[in-house]
């Protein structure tokens, strides 16, 4: 689904990603863990196409497309979805209105017809149920006045609406209580299929009890320095990152 090779990216002249390699095949869930400031959100932003970052080296193949050559919107239209660590509030723009615009622009890009108002509303009902998002929130302004948990659920609701090939969840679990966590994880699991892939960025092993990853990666100082089975997450939670740091410094 996605193959990242030797990715270097910097912001304001400071290199954050320093030769990152990662491959996530279709049908799999990969978790990325790592200490604060390691570059996890940077990776997500670079993949989503945020212009503040300059990619200086490397390549990203996204299901056959040269991802780095695409505009942010075209990446989304090709099936990339980022659930933001900090979703922005957009006063005055209603969730449903913006999602209909998004859905129709994506459909147009793919040569499909615009969705009818009736089908769209049916879809809103169906998908908001998956994440147990109050339908009232669906018609309110994007994230405006939403609680932290509601914002995260709204991200997964949008993901459900847009049905991406690759979803990157950036700390979607942080700030969620255990019920919300279960709901969000259920949502993600319901949307899993052989055709799509998911990258879950998290600090907490507990999320991975609900969303079982095929592979766990450790991102440290701008690189993936360790990859392993889901048990690696447990080990990281128990021991922290100091041993990783020590291992790296020893190299």
């Amino acid at each position, binding site marked *: 689904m996605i193959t990242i090779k030797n990715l270097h990216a910097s912001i304001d002249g400071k290199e954050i990603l320093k030769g990152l390699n990662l491959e996530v095949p279709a049908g799999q869930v990969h978790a990325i863990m790592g200490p604060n400031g390691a570059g996890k959100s940077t990776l997500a932003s670079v993949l989503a196409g945020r212009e503040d970052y300059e990619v200086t080296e490397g390549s990203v193949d996204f299901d056959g497309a040269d991802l780095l050559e695409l*505009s942010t*919107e075209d990446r989304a239209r090709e099936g990339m979805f980022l659930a933001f660590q900090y979703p922005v509030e957009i006063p*005055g*723009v209603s969730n449903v209105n913006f999602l209909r*615009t*998004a859905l129709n622009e*994506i459909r147009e890009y793919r040569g499909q017809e615009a969705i009818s108002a009736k089908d769209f509303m049916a879809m809103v009902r169906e998908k908001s149920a998956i994440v147990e998002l109050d339908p009232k929130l669906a018609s309110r302004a994007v994230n405006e006045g939403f609680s932290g948990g509601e914002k995260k659920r709204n991200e997964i609701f949008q993901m459900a609406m847009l049905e991406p090939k690759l979803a990157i969840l950036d700390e979607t679990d942080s700030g969620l209580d255990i019920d919300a966590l279960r709901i969000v994880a259920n949502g993600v699991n319901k949307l899993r299929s052989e055709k799509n892939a998911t990258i879950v960025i998290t600090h907490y092993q507990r999320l991975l009890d609900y969303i079982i990853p095929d592979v766990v990666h450790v991102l440290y100082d701008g690189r993936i320095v360790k990859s392993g089975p889901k048990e690696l997450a447990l080990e990281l939670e128990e021991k922290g990152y100091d041993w990783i740091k020590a291992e790296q410094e020893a190299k």
Partner: protein
Amino acid sequence: MSETQTDRTLSAFTKHLRQTEISLPAHLINASLNELAGKSFPTTRTEAWKYTRLTKLSKLSPTLAAHHDGINSTPFAIHSTGNRVVIENGAIHMNATRFETVSGLTIKRFSECSAEELQHVGGMLSLENELFNAMNTAYLQEGILVQIADKAQINSPIELIHLLSKVECAATIRVFIHVGKFAKAALTMGTWSAGADQSILNAVSEIHVGEGAHFTLQKLQCEEEGNFQICTEEITQDKDSVFTMHTVTLNGTLVRNNVRVRVNGTNCETNLYGAYLLKGNQHTDNHTVIDHMMPHCLSNELYKGVIDEQATAVFNGKVFVRKDAQKINAFQSNGNVLMTDTASVNSKPELEIYADDVKCSHGSTTGQLDEEAVFYLQSRGISERSARNLLVEAFIGEVLDKNDNKEFVAKTNAILNERFGWER
């Protein structure tokens, strides 16, 4: 500012204009002519015109178009029914005008009114140092008298269409509206142009909202770039009345709106809403005054602008609360979004409060679109252009949505679609 402006006398500007033949009170005509004699156009050294240059306007010598050209005015109509008066280059276009009998409503042309019927015209208008008001009196071409009888509920639209269709031509029009006690009505005013260039509309409205009456004035300003308009509204509210005004400015080289509301009774409500969406080299200047003279009143003022390309805007809003006007709630806010580095705005909200038991707030914001929000929308598959449009619409929608007149909103949306490619 170190720059010097060459003053241009008014006489060069008015040389082709004719003294009014309307039966206005003679002393007002004389006072106006005296006021204008030997005067020049205000420069940016004059406080009220600090950010609005009249240089381009002052270089013109507009003529009077003797007759209307009979331009098809249908595309400019906002309402499909009701009374419609079309005024082309300052003259009533009778074929396009539609008078309908509505109980409690009288609409008359000034040119067919006696001096007695016009005796109150000009009563609320200050002339001193108000050159455009003085010109509107001395050179008045035509006027519209609108009377709403006491207790009348006028549900059908009343629409005035101002149309400029000549090059370097002046249209000088007065509207005099009396809303009787406990009456209810709304009036729509559209300002348009077709084939006009370097032309100017000088429109003054005097509005008296009687005790317990409700009156709404909605203006849609769409003269094409190249033309000028100076629009003045003088409103007086009696006790227990509600006055609401919507000013939507979508085009025009120079649009100056002067609104003054004298709230001269207790328990009144005053709502002023303005939206301006500018591009090219447009300039729009909204000067408003709400004068609270009596206690227990509420006023809301919300003006918002989106300024693109090289366009410029001015907002100057004054709210006075006089000494004995206790228990006033007055809210005023002006927000602007600058779409480019070359767009600019000068915003000056002012409160002058002489009473002590009042609740007032005012604020002004100017900024760019939230780039984080643009990125968020793009990351969902929305093009950058649509993303910006969505954000701009949301911003300006707060004001546009205050108007619940479907036909007015539909026309506004149609023009927004035409000019900015929006689908609302």
